[in-house]
């Protein structure tokens, strides 16, 4: 408890979301401040110190802020988030204050929002299979406990619906308890937020999660705080209380735009598309807060959602995220337009940790070869579709026609599963059904004995 407070009334200027204060003695970097104005209080954080001049980012935004009559109080502490088991089932705003009308319950302690880097030696490799109930993920881009697997989406594609479905359906086979959900809404619209919360309420996820909501209408600077609060809370539940935590962050594009806004106000040298040069490190400080550690039952699994502007996978936000996360699930406009849900395009999708969580003793022995077989065959069918446009139907051989039929069956029945939950076995059965379109001699990625055991008289496998 501090016995005295230091306040400064020497506001030098207000630039975008930043407040400049001079004459500050011994300002701390990253320090939390309270800003008292004639019409209320705001909070902020010291972003830069240069001699006695401080740049403070104001979480509520600077709209209506007075340059005179404003007092800036230094709190002599960094920004922290209160944590406790009582947070379960609560809806909070983007700054961690209750947004559901109830008072904040018992708080066990407060944690710094920035966290600290996990020692790589303390980590254990994520290796337990998570059954999301979605065929394209479970069978071909397997999610494992402690992974960070983003969804790359385009404007208007059902990324949120897919995320809600994953939250609803995910289980670690053999574990009694399901995931605790920590949800960070970053600059999404009120409508999207409502849809999420309604969905969570309907399925009961609401009682088993913590929800941070920063709406598009809320301050942009607050968006820099929201995912950090969520991750500190997630780490508390995972590494101190031993829960498996699933963190959904939507939409990281809005986060990066807020980062750009603050960077521009500080007149920093811009990098690609105006985003600051340190965006990679900044994103890494969020994404790397996922994983499993030695001697702890809990884990943090992340599913960030990133909208690709104009479906461009080389956009800096998408690109840098792809370099940090362990794979990606890519949604495809073409599939969506044809009414296929979930519109996951498996070819650019990838799960880097898949091999750790599958195979004999974890899922089924042929998991990897089945995924490889489906990839190879589907890639071939897409290639032939393109060739067909040039040489016409007649230019293709009988075998090539069968590949094209396989591609259609794959999209129609394997990818297009709708809202139903498929167990891994059901996904496997569906995949055999689509492979029946091909002669069994083409199934060279699968173990020979397995293909033969399922082979009918006509030389194809039985669905």
């Amino acid at each position: 408890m501090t016995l005295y407070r230091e306040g400064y009334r020497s506001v030098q200027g207000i630039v975008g979301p930043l407040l400049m204060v001079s004459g500050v003695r011994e300002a701390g970097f990253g320090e939390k401040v309270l800003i008292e104005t004639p019409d209320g209080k705001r909070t902020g954080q010291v972003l830069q110190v240069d001699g006695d001049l401080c740049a403070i980012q104001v979480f509520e935004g600077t709209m209506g802020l007075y340059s005179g009559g404003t007092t800036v109080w230094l709190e002599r502490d960094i920004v922290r988030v209160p944590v406790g088991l009582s947070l379960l089932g609560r809806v909070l705003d983007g700054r961690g204050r209750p947004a559901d009308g109830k008072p904040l319950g018992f708080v066990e302690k407060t944690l710094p929002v920035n966290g600290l880097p996990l020692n790589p030696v303390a980590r254990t490799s994520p290796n337990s299979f998570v059954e999301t109930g979605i065929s394209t993920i479970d069978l071909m881009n397997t999610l494992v406990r402690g992974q960070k697997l983003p969804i790359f989406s385009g404007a208007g594609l059902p990324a949120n619906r897919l995320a809600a479905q994953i939250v609803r359906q995910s289980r670690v086979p053999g574990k009694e308890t399901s995931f605790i959900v920590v949800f960070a809404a970053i600059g999404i619209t009120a409508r999207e937020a409502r849809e999420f919360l309604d969905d969570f309420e309907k399925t009961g996820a609401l009682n088993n999660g913590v929800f941070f909501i920063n709406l598009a209408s809320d301050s942009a600077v607050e968006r820099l705080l929201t995912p950090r609060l969520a991750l500190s809370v997630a780490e508390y539940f995972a590494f101190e209380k031993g829960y498996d935590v699933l963190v959904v962050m939507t939409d990281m594009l809005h986060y990066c735009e807020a980062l750009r806004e603050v960077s521009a106000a500080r007149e920093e040298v811009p990098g690609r598309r105006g985003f600051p040069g340190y965006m990679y490190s900044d994103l890494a400080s969020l994404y790397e807060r996922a994983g499993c550690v030695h001697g702890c039952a809990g884990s943090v699994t992340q599913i960030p959602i990133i909208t690709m502007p104009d479906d461009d996978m080389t956009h800096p936000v998408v690109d840098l995220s792809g370099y940090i996360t362990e794979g990606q699930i890519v949604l495809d406009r073409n599939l969506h337009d044809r009414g296929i849900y979930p519109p996951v395009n498996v070819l650019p999708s990838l799960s880097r940790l898949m091999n750790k969580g599958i195979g004999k003793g974890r899922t089924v022995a042929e998991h990897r070869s089945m995924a490889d077989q489906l990839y190879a065959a589907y890639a071939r069918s897409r290639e032939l579709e393109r060739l067909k446009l040039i040489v016409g139907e007649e230019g293709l051989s009988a075998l090539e026609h069968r590949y094209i039929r396989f591609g259609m069956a794959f999209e129609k029945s394997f990818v297009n599963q709708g809202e139903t939950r498929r167990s891994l076995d059901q996904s496997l059965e569906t995949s055999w059904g689509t492979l029946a379109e091909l002669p069994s001699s083409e199934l060279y990625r699968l173990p020979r004995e397995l293909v033969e055991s399922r082979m009918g008289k006509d030389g194809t496998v039985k669905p």
Partner: protein
Amino acid sequence: MANMGRVVGISGPVVRAAVAFPVRMFEIVRAGKEALLGEVIRIRGNTVDIQVYEETSGMRVGEPVEFSGELLSVELGPGLLGSVLDGIGRPLARLREEGLYISRGANVRTLDESRKWHFSPVKEPGDWVRPGEGIGSVPEGTRIRHRVMLAPDSLPGRVDWIAPEGEVSLHDLLCRLEDGREIRLSHRWEVRRGRPFSHRLPFNRPLLTGQRILDTLFPMALGGAAVIPGGFGTGKTVTQQSLAKWCNADIIVYIGCGERGNEMTEVLEEFPSLMDPYYNVPLMERMVLIANTSNMPVAAREASIYLGMTIAEYYRDMGYAVAIMADSTSRWAEALREIGGRLEEMPGEEGYPAYLGTRLAQYYERAGRVRTLGDPETEGSISVINAVSPPGGDFSEPVTQSSLRLSGTFWALDKSLAQQRHFPAINWQNSYTLYDESLSGFFAQELGEDWKALRFFLSEKLSKEKALLELVQLVGRDGLSEQDKWTLMLSELFRVVFLQQNAFDSVDAFCSLKKMKGLLETLRSLDTLVSERLAQGVLFEQLAEVPFRTGLFRLRGIPDPEFSSSAMKWLAEIQKTLRSIEVVVR
């Protein structure tokens, strides 16, 4: 008494301090109450800018800054092998004792003082010792003899006293020279300064990787430099880890520079259980890992590659072939960019500082195959294999281009190959090697003159395929001759069976030169057999039922000793099948 300054400004990892005394460029400081390690990167009048290797949040204006007068250095001695260091040389296993997270201001010695080593002297009192020369050695692991040397930047001297054979630890005195200088197990070296050597040697020995596409088409020389650029998901890390596992270097320095924490964990969990294919000892015994993951402080990322290079040079000076791998150079360049941005420097291309190329050259040019300083008979080498992560997979960006200028081998990873799950996704059309000429002697000696012809056969078929595929786009497949249809199929077999390699399969992950040659010979014989039949009038469609692919896949999975007999047997079977196909008279 060290000089003290005080903090006047903080912006992320850059701290500005006011001083009243002269300071050195790149001098080491301890900043703030928590004594965070940092380095002076700019001096302007009475203020200096410092890059701090640890998270600065909570640091205040007015806190003290202690200037050491020394440059960033690392302690070199036995015990580096098998250890995991952070970007400034602190062992992560020891930091782990303090908790799950990396706490700040921790001051931990690189080497373990409690370990005992068995010292055997080679010098006697009265002997001269040259700089860099060994006075004795200790075994490090089962294979490596660690030379205890006089630091290479010191003057020669005569041994006055030397310790007898026996158990020693880091603080024991091992040797005293007549001028009073003392030699112990370890010495310090400034990381940004290259260690001297006698002279450079030509690039005429290969760094064998056990990867078919690399060793046949784009071989790399010991002491050379290779660049692996690729967008995300193209398998940079898997390729680098395969190289770390299977290349024929004695020592591997693996720098996880701004990459994922889980990848380092993977290496740590997997490598101790893997065996070195050349010497049958655990792979971990030849590894030094430097882990500065993406969420660890950005300035330490900048320092980490120099730290790795210094350790590599140290083992080179003992006469070992060292391979240093950094994953990835782009993250290192971004660290430079971030620091440069905080200093408000005028940016060059894409916001990178104008000195990007110079700094990269300072790193790459420390590679090479050399005669060491201490002993004219010893040769050592450092081969650099750097991954680059170009934004958007666009190779025209500055980090890829600057790296290309400095390296001799370019292994281009290709997104479309990766999407077809063709791994390693190395594009055989864009990649190149400049060591072809200088290595040809070695390959001719090792594999016979036929090797050149076999390589040519492979590359010729692959370029023919490219031309044919373009033709198919225009005229359709029916326009091709029977022989061309077969060429297309043969090159597909090349791609699937030869160029693709499964890093996760216990036999296929490593392929010996002999087996590569065997596979190529098999494919060439196959081509002769089939072409012969096609010339006799067999139609391409009639070949559809011949199990080329499954047979070759099986051959690929056969261990070395049985390979050539199995290949012969298979070819004989194929020949029989081909003979049984009847020529249809039209």
